[in-house]
């Protein structure tokens, strides 16, 4: 039985369609990430689960029960807001205690619970401070503590790491995963950062324009994207797409290149396609029989690797190379392609072509 389930959610704000038939099944105890660019409808979905947004259509089920009409207070959920929403006139301890105080817990229960969660998040010495006296990272922990102080049905998180600097974000990712593991609770986590989704999620739901594009494990979404858009959104650097079509036993590019037809596809002759290549599946240094000709367009030395932009005709192909790779702009290059790991998409619909095994 799913811990949280939303069915056919529809919501418009004026003329803007924020949710266009969103259905999601969040398994009990999973770390479920809702991923998408801004405007995709992921925050609206989360707020619908919380009861903060009135739906035009659709239902919200919590533990099998229809909670669509329930007030937020009655849904037994906890939420961490992107802006943390810490009560400015209350101390950290009072903020954390708020959910318990609202539910009329005893003073003894409250202080015990607050202490315990403060230990879990290493904020014991910050309890008497007010939010204005805390750094961004500390505020974030207090917001988390306020959510964790009870044992609600599920935890909702709205881009909680967005306002933190990179280093802190990387640290908090590990923290959140650790906390999730030790609690075993259901987390519904919203983000626009695909790295966060890949690194933390048990399951990822990718949203765009108020519609679910794909749901699966991080590996599913990364290695078997359902469409071109998902392939481009997940993974950094972005997947390169080259226009092409099948011609007999070759894959012929619009820019004039030619590769052997991948054995795993049965695409018919002439159909406009796009070949998707991830930067790590192509190489300038390795040799191969499937190669693309191009010229050096740009170099991005990132420290542990260099991303080489190669111009193939009018299109750009990004290639992952070793960290000390150098070259001159305009020099001719030959890029080896690992066709087993390539992707093919229908040029019109953007849908991924089915792969045949063998």
């Amino acid at each position: 039985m799913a811990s949280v389930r939303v069915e056919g959610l529809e919501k418009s704000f004026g003329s803007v369609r924020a949710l266009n038939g969103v259905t999601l099944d969040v398994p009990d105890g999973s770390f479920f990430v809702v991923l998408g660019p801004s405007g995709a409808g992921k925050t609206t979905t989360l707020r619908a689960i919380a009861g903060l947004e009135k739906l035009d259509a659709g239902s919200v089920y919590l533990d099998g029960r229809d909670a669509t009409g329930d007030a937020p207070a009655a849904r037994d959920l906890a939420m961490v807001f992107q802006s943390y929403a810490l009560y400015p006139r209350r101390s950290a301890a009072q903020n954390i205690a708020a959910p318990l105080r609202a539910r009329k817990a005893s003073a003894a229960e409250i202080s015990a619970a607050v202490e315990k969660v403060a230990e879990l998040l290493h904020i014991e010495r910050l309890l008497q401070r007010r939010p204005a006296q805390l750094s961004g990272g500390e505020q974030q922990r207090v917001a988390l503590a306020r959510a964790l102080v009870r044992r609600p049905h599920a935890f909702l998180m709205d881009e909680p790491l967005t306002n933190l600097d990179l280093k802190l974000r990387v640290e908090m990712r590990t923290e959140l995963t650790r906390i999730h593991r030790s609690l075993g609770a259901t987390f519904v986590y919203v983000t626009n950062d695909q790295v966060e989704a890949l690194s933390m999620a048990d399951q990822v739901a990718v949203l765009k324009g108020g519609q679910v594009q794909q749901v699966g494990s991080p590996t599913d979404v990364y290695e078997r994207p359902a469409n071109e858009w998902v392939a481009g959104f997940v993974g950094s650097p972005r997947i390169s797409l080259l226009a092409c079509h099948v011609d007999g036993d070759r894959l012929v590019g619009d820019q004039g290149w030619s590769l052997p037809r991948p054995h795993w596809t049965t695409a018919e002759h002439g159909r406009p396609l796009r070949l998707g290549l991830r930067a790590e599946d192509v190489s300038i240094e390795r040799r191969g029989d499937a190669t693309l000709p191009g010229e050096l367009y740009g170099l991005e030395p990132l420290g542990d690797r260099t991303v080489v932009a190669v111009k193939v005709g009018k299109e750009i192909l990004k290639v992952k190379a070793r960290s000390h790779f150098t070259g001159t702009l305009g020099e001719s290059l030959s890029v080896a392609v690992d066709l087993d790991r390539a992707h093919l998409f229908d040029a019109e619909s953007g849908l991924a072509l089915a792969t045949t095994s063998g």
Partner: protein
Amino acid sequence: MAISSDSAVSGTVPDDPPLRRRRRGRGGAVVEVALLTVLAVGMLFPVLWIIQTSVKENRDVYAVPAKFFGFSMTLDHFRDVFVAPAGGASDLSAAFLNSVLVAGGSTVLATVLGVPAAWAYSRFNVRGKKDQLFFILSTRFMPPVVIVIPVFLMYRELSLINTHLGLILIYAAFNVSFTIWMVKGFVDEVPGEYEEAAMLDGYTRLQAFWRFTLPLLVPGIAATAVFALIFSWNEFVFAIFLTSSDDVRTAPPAIAGLIGGSTVDWGLVAASAVVYAIPVLVFAFLVRKHLIAGVTLGAVRR
């Protein structure tokens, strides 16, 4: 050229002024100060004259040519504002008390009605919200005097003529539209997320508003209330038309009533005006920071 225009458009303001060709020297500053002084004296002259008149002996008040300097001061006029010639409280002091009652009552009423309305408009997507808000604001577009006669006729039917309640109601009606507009601006500044977080914590929306949002609105509500108070305090037209007897009449018509007839006690008029103006000046000083907000209301988008 493009750089300075760019910086102007991007809104960045350097602390030290960017380098500019120096065109005028110290002479320019002197001319500036002289011009501003002349302007200030011109604008403030009526005020200065009234203050002077209120402390002049009667013979100096009527002196021809008028005396600006070298007159003897007296506080007799101020005494006359509060004390009747025969002893006991003057009629003016009753009028002042009426003003206090009416202005205070209408402000409280406008605030109690306006604040929840402002909050509702800020937080909820009411259908036709923009139109409703415009309509509410539009009541302030016309000069109040335009509807004095219809209101008078209406009040006559309702027996509200010459009552404190009558004035309180009409002032509240004018103030509530302004209160809604101004307080809504303050509520907009307080993120709705506090209430949402409180609701998820387990409070109802009303409890959330009361506990977490309202305390943050107190300065804004206070500033708005002061504006409403100032309007009611200074109001003249409705006061004159809707009241007739001394026990209901507020101060503005009472002071105006001192003028007319064969002789006018200008000293008393001036002193009354000064006494009546002081509370307003004090309040205006208290809310000086918010005066700008009130004027630009919504014109500046963040």
